[in-house]
């Protein structure tokens, strides 16, 4: 792995909200072209970690390097240029509900490029067919199912041909088949578009389906990083309990 180029490097990230520590000294390298899954229970800090990597939250301590640039020290213009190289798919899809599917996907293109509106429409159609939703251009988000909305969210995330795509709980609240569709989509896109994907999830099935490497967060600490096989055969009792979903073990829900 060491010969691979680092896409994102998180260094000693700590984050606290109103005195409550959410992340505690997390360091993490994500390599170009891999699908990295951050798993962990509810409240383990995994969504916060994702938002720190996208730059939505500024960490209390530590820094994020993207292409060796520190996210913290950029001015507005540089930050905007950097953000255009990210795509993000949200847990609730976060589509703008007063815009149609096509307008949602073409929104970043309209805002950030000088492309002709005809070309933007073609790109939006292309992105929609990549996620299997050709023909739904004129629907409003409220007319679609949860799984379809998430796929539109993914189409919007890849609209600007980003280098890194972040997925926040891409399969939460979906039925098993829809989960499998999303997982396959993430895999396909990562390969076809040569993307780096960072996925936050607690769905163990999809972890082992899509991950090149997995990191386990527990109570704000990064317990273990490894390939899915290494994680499966981990000797750490917390990791073991988490992936089997056993009631007995060191993890207690309060």
């Amino acid at each position, binding site marked *: 792995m060491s010969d691979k180029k680092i896409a994102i490097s998180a260094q000693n990230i700590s984050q606290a909200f109103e005195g409550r520590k959410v992340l505690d000294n997390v360091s993490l390298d994500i390599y170009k072209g891999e699908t990295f899954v951050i798993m962990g229970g509810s409240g383990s800090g995994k969504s916060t970690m994702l938002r720190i990597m996208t730059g*939505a939250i500024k960490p209390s301590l530590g820094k994020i390097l993207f292409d060796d640039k520190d996210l913290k020290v950029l001015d507005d213009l540089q930050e905007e240029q950097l953000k*255009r190289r990210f795509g993000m798919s949200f847990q*609730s899809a*976060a589509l*703008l509900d007063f815009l149609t599917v096509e307008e949602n996907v073409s*929104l970043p293109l309209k805002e950030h490029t000088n492309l002709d509106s005809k070309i933007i429409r073609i790109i939006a159609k292309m992105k929609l067919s990549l996620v299997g939703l050709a023909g739904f251009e004129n629907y409003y988000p409220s007319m679609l199912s949860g799984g379809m909305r998430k796929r539109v969210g993914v189409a919007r995330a890849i609209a600007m041909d980003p280098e890194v795509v972040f997925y926040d709980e891409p399969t939460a609240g979906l039925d098993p088949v829809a989960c499998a569709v999303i997982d396959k989509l993430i895999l396909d896109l990562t390969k076809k578009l040569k993307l780096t994907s960072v996925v936050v999830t607690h769905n163990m099935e999809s972890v082992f389906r899509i991950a090149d490497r997995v990191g386990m967060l527990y109570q704000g600490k990064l317990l273990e990083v490894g390939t899915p096989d290494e994680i499966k055969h981990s000797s750490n009792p917390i990791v073991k309990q988490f992936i089997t979903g056993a009631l007995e073990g060191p993890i207690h829900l309060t």
Partner: protein
Amino acid sequence: MNIFENIGKTILHWVRVFFKSLELIIETLYWVFVGPFRKKPIKWGEVFAQMVFMGIQSIIIVFFVMLFTGVVLAMQSAPQLEKMGAVFYVASLVTISICRELGPVLTALVVAGRIGAAITAEIGSMNVNEQIEALDTMAISPVRYLVVPKFLSLFFMLPCLTVLGDASGFLGGYLIGVFNLNINSGLYLQTAFDFLELRDIYTGLSKSIIFAMIIAIVGSYQGLQTQGGAVGVGRATTVSVVTSFVLIIIADCILTGIYFFSDL
């Protein structure tokens, strides 16, 4: 101690709200005046769409509120003026108090209830559904995309609605004066316009511009601060309307004071 703690906390909270709103105003003005020179033009299409919703669709409610205010004002003042044998001064009393005071304030209050609530509810529910964050990660400024069109639209439409409100209030007074108090129509109009000066209109309109900014900024600020799902949206909407109401009255008092003491 608890009371003092609570008072202190509340004051601190509102001081923080004040400074954050100030930041929002500055950012909004940045996107209005500086943004267009940095290839981030104002979204005029969206401004016009908002103008239809905020302006055109508020016409009927503003018309009726101000019409009845004019009617009530004429009816209330007539008996008092009658005692002095000066019933026809109803015309100037109604006209001047509508143009200087009631027109701008009542129109602003109606619009704050209708539009301020809508702004907060819209931005607030986008906020709790991660849509604001989505705009942010797409490097689209939520202020430029959502706040600026609403701000500009209110800035243009509230003065227009105020003019309409002034006219409706005038009409209300006229109806009572001519058909109930039997003032001659020509005399009513003459008395009204003899005493009305241009500055009565423009001090009223200058107020309404300030009120428009209050409604837009308070509504957007509360929307952008919304947290905690549907309950949070409801709470933010209430806070937004109440804050706008109070600020409009306070601003009105201050502006009237300024005009009063500077002889405007």
